[in-house]
């Protein structure tokens, strides 16, 4: 039985990695993947607390988050493909037409 603080520490590291990826990576695909990391960090938290409190609700929520994440990444990748077709790049800092 793994102790709860250990799991929370792990998920925090995972989330921070995701944040770093979103803020620092230029490649849009990697940004999307970092978002997945953050979502899964949340999932870990949900499952951990579910186990801790002996309450199945958390796990159910985790399943929902996985489903939503699948949908989100589908749309996200579609947008990335369209951006590539139009701009021939997928660097997010070059996609900045919508400014002042």
């Amino acid at each position, binding site marked *: 039985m793994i102790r709860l603080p250990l799991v929370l520490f792990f998920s925090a590291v995972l989330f921070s990695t995701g*944040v770093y990826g*979103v*803020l*620092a990576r230029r490649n849009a695909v990697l*940004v999307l993947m970092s978002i997945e990391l953050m979502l899964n960090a949340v999932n870990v938290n949900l499952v951990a607390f579910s186990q801790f409190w002996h309450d199945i609700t958390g796990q159910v929520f985790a399943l929902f988050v996985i489903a939503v994440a699948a949908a989100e990444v589908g749309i996200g990748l579609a947008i990335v493909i369209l951006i590539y077709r139009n701009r021939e790049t997928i660097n*997010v*800092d070059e*996609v*900045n*037409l*919508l*400014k*002042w």
Partner: protein
Amino acid sequence: MVGAAETLSATAIGPGFARLAWVVAVLPLVSAALTLFFGKRTPGRGWIYGVAAMSAGFVLSVLVLWHFVQGGGAVGSSVTWFTIGPLHVEAGQYVDGLTAIMLIVVTAVSLAVHVYSIGYMHDDVRFTWFYVVLSVFTAAMLNVVIADNLIQLLVGWEVMGLCSYLLIGHWWEERINSNAAIKAFITTRIGDVPFMFGIFVLIAATGFHSANIQQVGELVGGPDVSRGLVSVAALLLFGGTIGKSAQFPLHVWLPDAMQGPTPVSALIHAATMVAAGVYLVGRMYSVFLHAAPEVLGFVGIIGGITMFGAALLALVQDDIKRVLAYSTVSQLAYMVTAMSVGPAGRDAAFFHLFTHAFFKALLFLGAGCVIHAVHSNNMSDMGGLWRRMPVTFWTFAFGSAALAGIPPLAGFWSKDELLVAASKGHAVVFTLMLVTALVTAFYTTRMVMLTFLGPYRGHGEPEEAPAVMTGPLVALALGTVSVGFLGAALTRGVFFKWVFFEVPEPVTFVLWVATLSILAAGLGVLAGWYVYRERPEPDPVFQLGWLSSVLVNKFYLDEVYMNGIVLPVRDRLAAAAVWFDRNVLDGMVNGTARLTKDLALGTDEFDRTVVDSAVNGVAQAAGFTGGLLRYLQSGNVQRYAAFLFVGVVVLAIVITRI
């Protein structure tokens, strides 16, 4: 509602047509509007509307009279016009026998004049306008006749004055005509103002109950009504009569009013409008009866002076229309004088008004035919026309004989009634009437002889007027011959039964009065014939020394008015008023304007500097801040995400601290 509204007896025809009397007054108004809007596009330039309305009005008037011939009672109906405190003023009609007679007179003469004018005014530039005003005038006169209250009567009264002014000045291109119009308007206005105040005083004296003529007439006899106030009211009302019916000293406008077209003179200045003053006294007679006796005495004195003075003035006129004008003044004065001798005189005066309307309209229209033929108003340019214009001559002769009082024409019977009324205890009035009758017969004979007999002295070849002009002459001549019998002892004076409800004094044929009357008329005619049989040159009436010069100068009244009133008013009062207006009133107005302008300029400055600066400053501040803040919108998704995370962290810290 109206006091005597209920009918007194059921009749075969019923009061139906009497109730419709107001339609007679509305018809000319409709025809006036039609003529005004469609006249110029109508074949004949619009006379058809007026003639049609007058014909319908005349027929309806006869039907109205029929109700009273059968012994029907007075009919009244009205609607509320306005209310001031306790005073309830109505607009409506009061139709009795007198109204019916007046309706007949007005519509008959108006119809004759409308028809006659087709010929007389044929080449006039303002032909259509002439018919419009003629119709409006008729409507106003009919309104005066059927009005059941004094305010409504005053409205018609004033509209008549306006139409009179417009028609006298119909040919305003000539200065003398527009001056005559102004003179007539202002002179009658001098009488109208007292008349208006007389109405107010009368309403006040009877306690502000009503302006209804019948009710006021009953109220003035009340115990708590001040006799002094009623006397004042009667005098003021009589002021209106002096102005409108051209009595001394305001008679001066009527001879000058002859500058208008002759049909106008016949309708307005002989038969109808000038008779309205006499009608007013008769309608308001109970006011005069309940006033101090001196009031009726005053009426008699004014009437007597006018009657005799105007007859003398008619002697020395060369203008045929002016002879008739002074004759009209004199005949109206006959009626006014008769009013002063009591109810019998009032009845006789109305009868004379009735007959006079016919023969005086006839004389004017006849004179119009003559003027039309010889292109001059002056009798010195006429003469010998009886062969060339037989219809005009014979009808004119009938009218003149009626005016002179030759039996059995209308004028004789009505003048006889006047004399009979005066013969009962009014010796001075009676004598004056007889003398005036003699003078009347003399100047009438002079007029006829100078115009129609002897050699022709004018230019060109005068011809008989067209049938459209002689037709009305013949119709009026028939009236002149016949209407007199209505009031004669022969028919037991049916006229007086129609006109009044109280049992009239039985009409008696007083032989000595009639004899004197015929004697006076005959003497006048004979004298006129004797003097003018050889057509003496120069005219003997101008060779009476100082008397002639006094008469030719019209008793110097025009000079007195001109030097005593017109010139001081025009040169001093008007000048002072102009000065006051220019300097004081205009100064006040201009000062206010300047002040307002300066204030506006100040406000404008304040608006531009202070208010606008504030508004612009706020806008600029917002724009500047927005310009700085917009650089946050970098378009870089990752920077937005960074803000988001920082925000979440800050929120998390804040929430956990709380």
